Structure formats: C-alpha cells, structure tokens
C-alpha cells in the first residue's frame, strides 16, 4: 500500500490544521498587525494577550470554573452510568428496551429545549452560578452517552468473569470493584473523555446558568467580545488556551479513542 492511497485523510487533516495555525499565530500578533493586513506569521510577536489572561483573575478563573464543572460532571456521569450500563449489558428485565431508548432520547435533545426550566430550577434551588449546578445540567446529555458507551464495553467482557466471581464467592461489590472495573478500564477512560468533550464544548447552558462565581471562559469571552469590540488578539489567545485541555485529553486516551467511537464494540 502506498502513501498516495492516504492522500484524502492527510489533506483533510491539513484542512483542519490551517485554521488552528491561524488562530495560534493570531494570539501572538499585536492588534495593530491583525487589523492592518494579512500576515502569515507574527511579524512582531507579542505575549501581551497571554500575559493579560494569566495575570487577570477575571480571565484565568474562567478556565478554572470550566474545569471544575466539567470534572464534576464527568465524575457524576461515569459513576451513575457504570452500574446502569452493567444492568443493560447483563440483565433482562421488563421495559429494558424502552428505558434504553429513553436514555438515548435525552442525548438527542438539545440544551436549548431545557434552557428555561434549568435557569428557573437553578434559581429556585440555589444552584444558580455554582459549579455543581452546571455539572448537573450537563448530566442530561452525558449520562446517556456514558451508559451507551459503557454498555458496549461491558457487553464485550466475557460473561465468564461474572460466573467465576460467583464461584469464587465474590460478593457483588467486590466483583464490581475488583474484576469488572479493571476489565473495562479503557472503556471508563474513553467514556470520561466523551463526557469531558461534550461538557467542555457546551456553551448555552454553561453561560446561562452562571453569573460570576462559576462563569466559564466561553462566557467571559462573550462578555469581552462585546467590551473589547474587535480585540481579536485577546479572543484568539483565549481560544488557544481553550483548546489545550481537549488536546491533552485526546493524547491521554489516544490508544482507546477508536474503540470509544465504536461504543466499545470494536476490540
């Protein structure tokens, strides 16, 4: 097989990378250069935009807030999904298919549908502008995702491990923690990755459910976008930093990524 066979994916990846290159270089350009003319690399490179983000609490806390609610969401989603996925993978019970369908239905629902009640409920329960409030709101699409992926991974584990655990006199909790969880560890990593991804990129709810104490970076950028009107250097620098957590996570789970995309159904 020759390299030329793979021209299409390589060209596609270049198409993906060029805008990213543009964004990164823009973060290092002065606003004068950005507004002046098209330059392919920063002629007068500056760290000024990044310096503002790292020194101004209002900016960098945006990343902290986003990381906090995303982490909380990943923990909640994955921990409630593991037992549920096990039930779907190993048990037959009445209403199993409709219930599974019900879960998936929520994944397909858009945040915009639930925007109004979420704002209202979070104000009523005191969860407005808290990290846990956003984390819980994001559960409605991430719990189904987690159940879906983990169900695939658990189904791929031979039933013999359940049987042998019983024979060995393992209690249920012991079986779960000692045998099942290690057996699906890559699945858990991939599931966490997907939950991270969907929560990290969501903007509408995260912005609407927060004001100051839990405002994610995207919300701060929106505000800055209005105030800084045309300060593209700042927006580019803030965007570049918004990529980094995602890239790190991809690198962490890269070995299992493809399997994750097949919902655990490919070994």
């Amino acid at each position: 097989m020759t390299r030329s066979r793979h021209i299409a994916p390589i060209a596609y990846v270049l198409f993906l990378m060029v805008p990213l290159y543009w964004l990164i270089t823009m973060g290092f350009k002065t606003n004068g250069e950005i507004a002046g003319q098209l330059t392919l690399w920063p002629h007068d490179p500056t760290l000024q935009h990044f310096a503002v983000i790292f020194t101004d609490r209002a900016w960098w806390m945006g990343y902290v807030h986003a990381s906090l609610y995303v982490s909380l969401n990943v923990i909640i989603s994955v921990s409630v999904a593991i037992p549920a996925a096990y039930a779907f993978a190993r048990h037959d019970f009445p209403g199993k298919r409709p219930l599974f369908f019900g879960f998936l239905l929520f994944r397909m629902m858009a945040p915009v549908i639930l925007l109004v009640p979420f704002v209202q409920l979070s104000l009523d329960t005191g969860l407005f502008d808290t990290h846990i409030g956003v984390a819980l709101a994001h559960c409605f699409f991430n719990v189904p995702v987690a159940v879906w992926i983990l169900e695939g991974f658990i189904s791929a584990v031979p039933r013999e491990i359940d049987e042998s655990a019983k024979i060995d006199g393992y209690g249920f909790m012991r079986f779960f923690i000692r045998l099942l969880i290690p057996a699906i560890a890559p699945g858990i990593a991939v599931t966490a990755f997907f939950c991270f991804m969907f929560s990290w990129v969501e903007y509408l709810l995260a912005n609407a459910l927060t004001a100051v104490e839990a405002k994610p970076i995207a919300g701060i950028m929106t505000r800055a976008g209005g105030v800084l009107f045309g300060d593209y250097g700042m927006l580019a620098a803030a965007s570049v930093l918004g990529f980094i957590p995602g890239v790190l996570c991809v690198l962490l789970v890269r070995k299992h990524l493809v399997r994750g995309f097949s919902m655990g159904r490919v070994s």
Partner: protein
Amino acid sequence: MSAKTAAVTTNRLEPALLLTPAILVMLACGVVPFGFVAFYAVHDTFAGNDFLFVGLQWFKQVLTSSDFHWAMLRSLGFSLLALAIQIPLGLYIALRMPRSGMLASVLVVSMAIPLLTPTLVVGYLWKVLALPNTGLLTAVFALAGLSLDMNSKIWTWIMLLLMDTWHWTSLVVLLAYAGLKAIPDDYYRAARIDAASAWSVFRYIQLPKLKLVLAIAAILRFMDSLVIYAETYVVTRGGPGVSTTFLSHELVQTATIQFDLGEGSAMAVIYFFIVLAVALLFFRQVTNAERQA
C-alpha cells in the same frame, strides 16, 4: 444493601438497584425540567406567579407564525446540507485511512481536535478567518478569484457549512473508521481470493457492516446541526437579515429575550416531537441493523 442479597434475589431487584442512580439523575436533570417546559407550553403566566391554563393556544401561535416556519425550514435545510456533505466525505476519508500504524494514530488524534473545540471558540475562529481584508479564508477565496462577502446570504451559508464541516466531519470519519476496523480480516481475504473489485468490497462487505455506525453518525449530526447555536450566532448574528436565524436562535430569542415563556416552551415541545420522531426511526434502523449483524 449487602452483597449477599443481591446475588440471591437476582434478575429483578439487582437491575432495579443498579439502574436507580442513573434514573434518579435523569429524572432530576432531564424529565423534571422537561415537565416544566410541557407545563409552560399550555399555560399563560403573569409575572411568573399565576399560571392560567390556555390549552393549545401557544402551539397555534407558533405553528401559524411565519417566523417559526422559516426558522424551521432554514434549520432543516442546514441540517440536510450538512449531512449531505459530511456523511459521504467522512465515509470516503475513513475508507482511505491507514488501518494501523503511526500515521493512523497521528491522523486520529488530529481529527479529534475540532471535536474538542468549544462551540463558541469555533465561532470566533471562523469569524476571524472570514474578516474582510485580513482574514485567511477571505484571502484564499480571493486567490481563487472569488470574493467572500459576508453580506451575501449565499456566501454566509457556504461559510457556515464550511465551518460545520470543519467542526464535525471528524465525528463521521472516526465512527466510520471504528466500524471499518471491526470488520475481520477474513472478509478481505475472501474478497481477494474471489478477486473482488474495490467497489464490490465496498458495496458488499464494508457498507453493510457500516450501516449501524453510519446511522449513529447521521442521527448525531442531524440532531446537533438542527440546533446549532453559538457558532453561527457568533459569526453572523443570524444575518444578513434573518437568513441564518435558526430554530435555536428563534427559541432563545422568544423565551429569554422577549420573555414569552409559553411561546418559547411550545417551540421546545414541538422540537421535542421532532427529536422523538427521528429517534424512533433511528432506533428501528439500529434494531434492524443489529439483527442483521
């Protein structure tokens, strides 16, 4: 509960207990909020305290509103165009991917990056790419003798589709690629013995095996592009005119800016029924595909 009882009273109690945490979370974070939406959709409110049952009044208002019709048509049009571009393109790229090795890993990791980009950042990115005079995209178009005019409806649509393709085609590629990797080598060996053409390998081996993942890709792409919000709003503010005002913009505008709770909720319920219909269709497809597999 103790581990012992779980093992003894298996098959009824055990799944119920295992499912309880997930169901509770979904009730609190999904079902109850949706209940509120359904309630608002059939009530009128004065200052958010007194609610008056108004039956289907809001639904009539929404369904006869030409703003809603057009927003719906634009959203459906955008979704279908996005699918028409991204599914074949993603499938083609996946078929051309190396099956394994260093190049494959580099490609997979690179492809995942746009998927991890916050929607708002995608919007800003493409906004700066399309800046007049200094945007890279504008310059590329100019090189090709075209002028990317963000005041033109057609160019704005092309630009938004390009952005969505950049953002989401990878999802199709990675799903299809995962599906391809699941096809055992024996199938290809058998095809080689039969001297099958590349087309018949695709038509009779790969495509049938990919049915399920392509259905998943199509449904995810359809649902997500149908409610695209932040990206397009950042780039176009719904314009020029209302040419890129989509369903979600209409909904957010109605519910949170005009404070028409009932009307906004009625839109949300209508949207929910669309989701339900498409999801049921999809679920039947998946069930069939799994039965065949």
